[in-house]
């Protein structure tokens, strides 16, 4: 009997997790520790749920009026001090148990493992939220947009922020841990260690404006050596202006309002426009915004701006 239960609970939990009865399947130690806390709280709240709903249903059945005359008195009971004490103290104890467990698990969730622990020296990535895209900067200066590449089984530490001229966003990849706000001018720290290669999806969680709903984020976890190789070659390519940074930038920063082919959406079409053909005009608008368009690239580095304007000229300026 006990064995069946022991087997059933994880099986049930797995099914439930996939159907949304628990946070998504964790793929990082911090997310796992959050799920453990969730399960712990669920035990107690589940029991209270059954107790309250069960007694509610039982009382409704047991003490229904039935054939008793309308208005006939029920038992004239005014209260019971011992019961009051019991249902005050029992919840206190339960909450102590929940709170203690949360504090016990907290270091596993919050603290970035030290360099000597599993996962080794962390890869430091700056995560910046803009309207309506994410920009990642690696220690060697490599820039990526919306999709972050990360090594499997290595700690990745995140400095989450937003440029001063922007609004608040919130960085969140459910399988890789909790969310933290990207607040203009402030920096929050988080981390993850992806346990498997794959693409983990998420999106901005703090309402940030008209295209908040499509401000997606992805983490692509790749094997460690592959990551190292990519980071090095990407740095050279971006230095030389031969990377796909322009295309990435367009897809992340421009396409959500102007369409992937520059056909226009909530923003005017860019394909064939004067702006696409004129790098100076494009830079002026990207840096300062125009009309309802926010200054999406006010603080971009020259090479990113150059990559974008070049892409606009080649890909869109020539008619798409």
């Amino acid at each position, binding site marked *: 009997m006990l064995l069946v239960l022991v087997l059933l609970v994880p099986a049930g939990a797995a099914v439930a997790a996939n159907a949304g009865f628990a946070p998504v399947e964790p793929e990082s130690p911090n997310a796992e520790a959050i799920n453990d806390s969730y399960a712990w709280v669920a035990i107690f709240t589940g029991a209270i749920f059954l107790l309250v709903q069960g007694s509610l249903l039982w009382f409704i059945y047991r003490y229904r009026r039935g054939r008793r005359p309308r208005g006939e008195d029920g038992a004239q009971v005014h209260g019971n001090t011992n019961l009051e004490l019991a249902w005050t103290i029992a919840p206190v104890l339960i909450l102590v148990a929940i709170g203690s467990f949360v504090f016990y698990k907290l270091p596993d969730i919050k603290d970035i493992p030290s360099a000597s622990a599993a996962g080794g020296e962390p890869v430091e990535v700056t995560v910046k939220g803009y309207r309506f895209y994410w920009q990642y900067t690696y220690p060697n200066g490599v820039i990526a947009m919306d999709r972050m590449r990360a090594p499997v089984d290595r700690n990745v530490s995140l400095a989450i922020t937003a440029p001063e001229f922007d609004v608040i966003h919130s960085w969140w990849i459910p399988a890789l841990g909790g969310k933290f706000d990207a607040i*203009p001018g402030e920096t929050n720290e988080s981390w993850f260690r992806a346990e498997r290669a794959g693409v983990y999806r998420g999106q901005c*969680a703090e309402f940030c404006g008209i295209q908040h709903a499509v401000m997606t984020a992805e983490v692509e976890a790749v094997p460690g050596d592959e990551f190292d190789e990519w980071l090095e070659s990407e740095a050279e390519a971006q230095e030389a202006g031969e990377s796909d940074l322009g295309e990435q930038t367009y897809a992340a920063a421009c396409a959500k309002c102007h369409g992937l082919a520059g056909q226009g959406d909530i923003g005017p079409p860019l394909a064939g426009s004067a702006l696409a053909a004129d790098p100076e005009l494009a830079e002026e608008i990207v840096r300062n915004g125009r009309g309802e368009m926010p200054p999406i690239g006010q603080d971009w580095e020259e090479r990113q701006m150059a990559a974008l304007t070049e892409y606009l000229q080649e890909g869109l300026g020539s008619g798409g």
Partner: protein
Amino acid sequence: MAVRVETVPRWYHGRFASWFVTVDHKRIGILYIATAGFFFLCAGVMALLMRTQLAQADMSVVEQDGYNQLFTVHGTMMVFLVVVPILAGFGNFLVPLMIGARDMAFPRLNAMSYWLYLFGGLVLLFSFFADQGAPQAGWTSYPPFSVYTDGPGQDLLILSLHILTVSSLAGAINFIVTIHNMRTRGMSWTRLPLFVWSIEVYAALLLLVLPALSAGLTLLLLDRQFDTGFFVPTDGGSPVLYQHVFWFFGHPEVYIMILPAMGIISEVIPVFARKPIFGYKAIAFSTVAIGFYSLLVWAHHMFTVGMPNFLNGFFMVSSMIIAVPTGVKIFNWLATLWRGNLHFDTAMLFSLGFLSTFTIGGLSGIFLAAFPIDWQVHDTYYVVAHFHYVLFGGSILAILAGLFYWWPKMFGRMLGERLGKWSFWFIFVGFNLTFFPQHMLGLLGMPRRVYTYREDGLWEGYNLASSIGSYVMGIGILLVVWNIWRSRKGRRAGNDPWLADTLEWFTTSPPPPHNFDRVPYVTSARPLYDLRRRLKERGAL
């Protein structure tokens, strides 16, 4: 004492005009409830539009900014124009009657509160017609986004809330003065109806926290109009400061919206269980305790802004402490059912529904209070599910219970029971179908305040279920409206159709302008029960 007889122009007594010039607490209460009912239907239509947009991925029922306007006004309207004022309406109608008073302490001030509420509400509603539409920064209006939005919509929201704040402050003072000074003979604090207790705490909380909202919104307005930069990082301001100010108001506001609803439940359940309330003092004290602790929990709305963990920990513990007095209430209501003679009239059905759904909302709150778990579910549909379970499953179900329970007292006619029961089942089933799947959506990663979502089997399934549920609920609400319309010719109620316990049932239905010809001496929390017993002993009943 000289009696001054005021003469008023004849038109004051007109069938419609009399409602415009009235200072009678009962009529003002009814005006509050009717106006809030109107805004409730408006906000409901907005909700249905949003659910239609989200029924499937990539729908285009409304545009992006249209969607943002809808959820902003829906939220603001439900909080400030529906739940808070409809509870003020019940308070207005009931408090003087329940404590055996002639009227509120300041009848003219009372009328002023109502008219300010109406005009403040219309400012918000008509913001849809402003240049570039209604406000679209969410009901929380977080800067810097709310500073950068174009058009006057956001300014109209601030203006509207300033007007409503003046209205609520005046109303709160009126309630407190009335409750403290105008209780009838024998109505001590331990004999005060529990609904009146809840209005006392509701009013005290409004007085304590509304000034914080006014301050925050005024700074926001200055930032928008005069570039003062209090909350704008480029000018050295702090956006997180606004969040602290807002939630210092915003969290107690949640209890402002639920405590009087709990008060309604504490009145309805004993009457339909034919028992005294179990643990009167425990319930009254827990009301005060919840009010007090509600002032200490605000930053649990801000676990993701990066506060130090000792602060996160403090707000987790204080938030969990609130679960204790809330649990005390739920257990006492359950114990009131125990060994009762349960009558399942519509008011009771809504109350039992409240017990079930509010418990779910309370339990999901424990997950949210544990801040590492909140890092996963914050700002997702899980939170949307949670607060609808406490505000719709809690406040609105209780308000509907109160409507069915006190309607006969307000208008002298009963609402239809058969239709009422149908409306309960539509609303209860529809509500759970709408909001339960939203827990799952949030855990699966769907953020709130999105006008569309990616195609993904489960997301689409749960969203569709949620949208279908919202229509079922909508039918239930329409049945209530129809019931109200039909009640013009409903069964006559008599003074006390439910054989209830509190003083409002001692007078006629509807009560005369002066409320009571005489008020019985109050010897317990159930004066009418005592009266019936005395009459029975004398063989008169």
